[in-house]
């Protein structure tokens, strides 16, 4: 069992290295980011932050219950040790969340979250289950159809946050639900597909990118419109802010699509990710980053799409 966890640490360190960050730097960065995001969430959402926080923790934990992974663990360990591994993994993963909840003096939720983590260590789910989740995005696969199925359990929560923001008259909560939605949509474009899926296209690099952007914007509007309409009706004085958030979200979605192909078929590297984050903190920066990503994408796609 000890060897298993040593191997997990080695694998994690390799992920950091592949990402372009030395592990010795990566751990403090992760702690800083985690604390920063947690503080931001609690600052903005106040009493509702703990729900969002617990939801993020549980959805992270649920990944460990995937059937294939657990079949592998069961084949490696005897029954008692298998459950120990699951329990230790779940406890370690949920620990930072619990520590922050305790720091915020939400003791009740810290206990609840730990109990959920314990229960989840006994639960296995089949990611390739025979049940197919229906999606409205089947006509234009694959980013939204695959992404929607992977994150379908998050949608009710996001739309519930919008509803709650209206019920308690808290615009920040509603704006957060819109931002959370777009962050999730950006994530649909975070993984590079096999180059075969670009190679098959009978399109020039420019048409390929434009086609991807059109699909992204169309589906992005469909998913964000219910939130925007609801918020506009109930917080009509904020209509300009809502509109600019949606426009900004769509623009960052477009940038995510273009940035994804800027290193294609390689994964997006650290400098590109830094540029994306910078453009989020300082929106005018997008006027530089977007054309840069676009020209790089055209260059990279040219090698794949041109005969």
């Amino acid at each position, binding site marked *: 069992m000890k060897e298993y966890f040593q191997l997990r640490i080695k694998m994690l360190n390799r992920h950091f290295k592949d990402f372009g960050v030395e592990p010795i730097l990566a751990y403090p960065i992760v702690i800083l980011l985690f604390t920063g995001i947690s503080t931001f969430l609690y600052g903005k959402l106040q009493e509702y932050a703990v729900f969002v926080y617990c939801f993020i923790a549980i959805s992270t934990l649920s990944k460990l219950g995937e059937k294939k992974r657990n079949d592998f663990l069961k084949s490696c360990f005897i029954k008692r040790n298998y459950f120990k591994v699951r329990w230790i993994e779940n406890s370690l993963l949920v620990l930072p969340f619990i520590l922050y909840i305790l720091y915020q003096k939400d003791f009740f939720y810290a206990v609840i979250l730990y109990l959920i983590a314990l229960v989840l260590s006994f639960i296995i789910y089949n*990611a*390739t289950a*025979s049940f*197919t989740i229906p999606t409205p995005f089947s006509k234009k*696969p*694959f980013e939204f159809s695959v992404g929607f199925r*992977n994150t379908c359990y998050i949608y009710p929560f996001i739309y519930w946050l919008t509803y709650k923001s209206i019920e308690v008259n808290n615009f920040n909560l509603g704006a957060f639900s819109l931002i959370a939605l777009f962050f999730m949509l950006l994530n649909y474009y975070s993984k590079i597909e096999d180059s075969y899926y670009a190679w098959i296209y*009978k399109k020039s690099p420019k048409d390929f990118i434009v086609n991807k952007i059109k699909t992204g914007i169309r589906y992005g509007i469909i998913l964000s419109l219910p939130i925007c309409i609801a918020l506009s009706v109930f917080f009509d004085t904020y209509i300009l802010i809502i509109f600019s958030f949606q426009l900004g979200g769509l623009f960052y979605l477009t940038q995510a699509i273009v940035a994804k192909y800027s290193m294609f078929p390689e994964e997006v590297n650290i400098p590109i990710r830094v540029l994306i984050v910078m453009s989020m903190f300082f929106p005018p920066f997008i006027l530089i980053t977007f054309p840069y990503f676009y020209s790089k994408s055209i260059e990279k796609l040219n090698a794949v*799409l041109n*005969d």
Partner: protein
Amino acid sequence: MIKIQNLSKKYGKIQVLNTINLELERGKIYGIVGENGSGKTTLFRCIAGMEKYNGKIDTIQNMKDYLGFLETESYFFSKITGREYIQLLCNAREKELVNIEEKNIFDLPLDKYATAYSTGMKKKLALTAILLQGNSVFILDEPFNGVDIQSNIIITELIHKLKELGKLVIISSHIFSTLADTCDEIHLLENGSFVKKVFKEREFDLSNAVIWQHIRYFN
């Protein structure tokens, strides 16, 4: 239709393909035989324009847009259904997809996730998709691998049909008998070079070549 001249490919210091010369004509079926690592897949990827190489490949303009490439192991997204996979490949070639049920020749469960398919079903799905793209050139890398006998017969029939339609088909396989059934020419690839070529009209030579190859592999 495709003329390959002095094609060579290196991965670092490893020479994978060495001065390949080959002419491929429309309406013919070509077989490429070779042991694992002999360079078959690399050759296919070079023809498809998925790899950089030294040498020259003369083809029709934008051949990539009319080429159906069945990879040895096709990659499938984790939550994409068979129907969506076919839709994606047809969208990519701007091909409108109508009556997909009628064209589902292998009776695949199209509304299930492709990752839940068996190895053979995945192969059949990928093959169905490239057939529905309406390509004029087909590269089939190990199309019979993991496929049941009944589907094997259907695939063989399909290949014959493609030939009748004037398509160019290039196949690799370890099942020599299937190649003998379908191919007009079979080329033996060894250490990145073609070392032998046999024609359909000289079937006796072909089986000799196959036996010869077996003996060499096991010695």
